[in-house]
């Protein structure tokens, strides 16, 4: 896989100080250079997907706090001008209302694309998502559903976001049958996966790695394309250990793989992409080959989605495992402000865990 890094000037929301913090996020991430298209950053790729979604379906709507001005991260720039304010509009500041409204809109056969400004602010809408959206189809015996609903929300660290602009709440939603949870790792992935989510007949929570909005740049095909949900992808082949992650964490993990390789350890890196329902078969096949598994995510380790992957793989691959499954995750603390560098599952932590798993 051709992967090259180079520095990239502009940064997200002010600048990011990266003392004591070694990951690759400060570098620009370029993946999949084959295939052509225009070079785009992640927020522009999302923007393109939204343009296409609105263009191809007259019953698609985009709404949320400040979205008609482009949104905090510029993902919805130009949409209101292009499609008019009856299809792209600002809502008042009330997440519960945004999601409830989206469920109603979707229940009448529309595609409701709702934005929650930060994943940290999704909790006022938690009841609507968990009890209304996720169970609508089941409890109505398939008379009603809100499959046209897609909830987009930026998640994860940005270097200095503090308690309420940095959290990774994906595991809460992975505990809810009836929902899908999808997280892209790059611009090309973001565009294809978001279009799939919007068109998928199930309600979906789509978390966007906000750290990569500007930092991650790659060639993105300009046409309308979709990437399959619930299909993971091996983004780096290897034979000694399998690493599983999603979103922004993959670039950190990829760095660790590169360093491990210098020490003669061959790592296989898998991007899960869809967290529920997830691609167990691909992870299982990889672990059966390597005999070792490491999972990494930014959310706190306890009760994180890594725990679910670990349990499932132990069930399926018990006799093939050469070492306990390793998890390198956020710590069991609230997301800290000044201590962010200590909290994060950094490249060095991953590298150490790779080595101790190999030497177990």
């Amino acid at each position: 896989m051709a992967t090259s890094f180079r520095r990239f000037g502009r940064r997200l929301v002010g600048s990011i100080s990266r003392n004591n913090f070694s990951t690759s996020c400060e570098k620009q991430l370029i993946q999949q250079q084959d295939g052509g298209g225009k070079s785009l950053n992640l927020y522009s790729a999302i923007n393109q997907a939204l343009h296409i979604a609105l263009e191809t379906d007259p019953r698609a709507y985009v709404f949320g706090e400040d979205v008609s001005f482009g949104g905090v991260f510029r993902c919805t720039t130009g949409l209101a001008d292009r499609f008019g304010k009856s299809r792209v509009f600002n809502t008042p500041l009330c997440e519960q209302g945004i999601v409830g409204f989206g469920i109603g809109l979707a229940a009448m056969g529309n595609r409701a694309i709702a934005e929650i400004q930060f994943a940290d602010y999704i909790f006022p809408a938690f009841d609507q998502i968990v009890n209304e959206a996720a169970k609508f189809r089941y409890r109505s015996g398939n008379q009603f559903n809100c499959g046209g609903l897609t909830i987009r929300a930026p998640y994860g660290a940005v270097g200095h976001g503090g308690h309420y602009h940095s959290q990774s709440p994906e595991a809460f939603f992975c505990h809810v049958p009836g929902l899908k949870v999808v997280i892209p790792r790059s611009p090309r992935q973001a565009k294809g996966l978001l279009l799939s989510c919007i068109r998928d007949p199930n309600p979906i929570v789509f978390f966007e790695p906000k750290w990569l909005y500007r930092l991650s740049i790659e060639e993105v095909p300009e046409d309308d394309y979709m990437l399959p949900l619930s299909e993971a992808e091996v983004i780096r082949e290897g034979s000694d250990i399998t690493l599983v992650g999603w979103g922004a964490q993959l670039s950190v993990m990829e760095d660790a793989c590169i360093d491990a390789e210098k020490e003669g350890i061959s790592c296989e890196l898998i991007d899960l992409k869809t967290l529920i329902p997830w691609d167990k078969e691909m992870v299982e096949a990889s672990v059966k080959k390597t005999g070792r598994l490491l999972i990494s995510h930014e959310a706190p380790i306890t009760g994180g989605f890594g725990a679910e992957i670990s349990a499932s793989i132990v069930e399926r691959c018990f006799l093939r495992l050469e070492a306990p499954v390793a998890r390198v995750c956020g710590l069991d603390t609230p997301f800290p402000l000044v201590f962010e560098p200590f909290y994060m599952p950094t490249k060095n932590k991953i590298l150490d865990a790779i080595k101790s798993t190999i030497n177990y």
Partner: protein
Amino acid sequence: MALSKLSSSSSRLTNLLKPVTTSFLLHRPISTDTTPLTIETSVPFISHQCDAPSRSVETTPKELLSFFRDMALMRRMEIAADSLYKAKLVRGFCHLYDGQEAVAVGMEAAITKKDCVITAYRDHCTFLGRGGTLLEIFSELMGRKDGCSNGKGGSMHFYKKDANFYGGHGIVGAQIPLGCGLAFAQKYSKDETVTFALYGDGAANQGQLFEALNISALWDLPAILVCENNHYGMGTAEWRAAKSPAYYKRGDYVPGLKVDGMDALAVKQVCKFAKEHALKNGPIILEMDTYRYHGHSMSDPGSTYRTRDEISGVRQERDPIERVRKLILAHDLATEKELKDIEKEVRKEVDDAIAKAKDIFHSPDAVICFSYSQESPMPEPSELFTNVYVKGYGVEAFGADRKEVRGVLP
């Protein structure tokens, strides 16, 4: 006023603030004249389901001068926070209060530190009004040990228990039911105290507000809901988000008053009135018509969704500090030069506090941080794990491999 008593607010900080306090004390005392003075509010109060308080506000020269000084200090502090942010010494998200100072100052003049105050993330000046110190503020902003939350919170998370300031809350609207819960406890304690729960015009559209209003009214809680209407929630003008931007009326069965939030005396008058009302009759909404000069947060230039003319118009016609300056001059309570001197003084106070917050020598374990050149002590790394649970609940830290290196934390 608490702000003028900088030196006595915390014994631990007294020494640290020596230079600040001396410079302050050296100056000839600000007017101590307490002869009553009656001043008319800028505009009448508008009421909903209740009588309005009188427009004639009792004050004194001393109070007016303290309003001037306190607001000038707040203004200066916010401008300094802006520079620190731009110099990358403040991390995290940072929301400034300049323009809205009269709300914090007027409210404090009407209530005591036994009353509770709770607000959202735009909390620097509310904290200062509750008697917090500049050193605590700048240290917290810069994530230093001497901060009011030990450097663990940052701009949006200021608290002051001894003055019943229940803090800065980052989730829009979440502080309102919490504040009503404080009022609920106050009803039991029967000590004639109330809670002021502040929220913005954007927050006024959150469902939580209405849930809290109903409960507070049902149980006659001594809750005063203060809507600081600065007319924008981030980039959204009030009329884009609210069917009725008459926030003082939106409690329906809950009485409300609309107030010129740029007039510290009007704010004082209405807060006094509201406290009495709440103790007797239960909740009341105060809509403070105010304005924020800065953008929403540091990443918002504040000029894309409103015109520069609008901002400069408010500055010229309604500025809360200028209003008090004019009153002082019109009543001949101080000279123009004396007011300028006060402004110089507060500027120095702010500069000194920043220097202290940055000073690497003022803390016993400053040595550890020498390598950070220029920067003052950060909290100990182990602080990352404290206060998650009560001590002794067996929180563990894991080493990089998550198995071999493991320790139980305090």
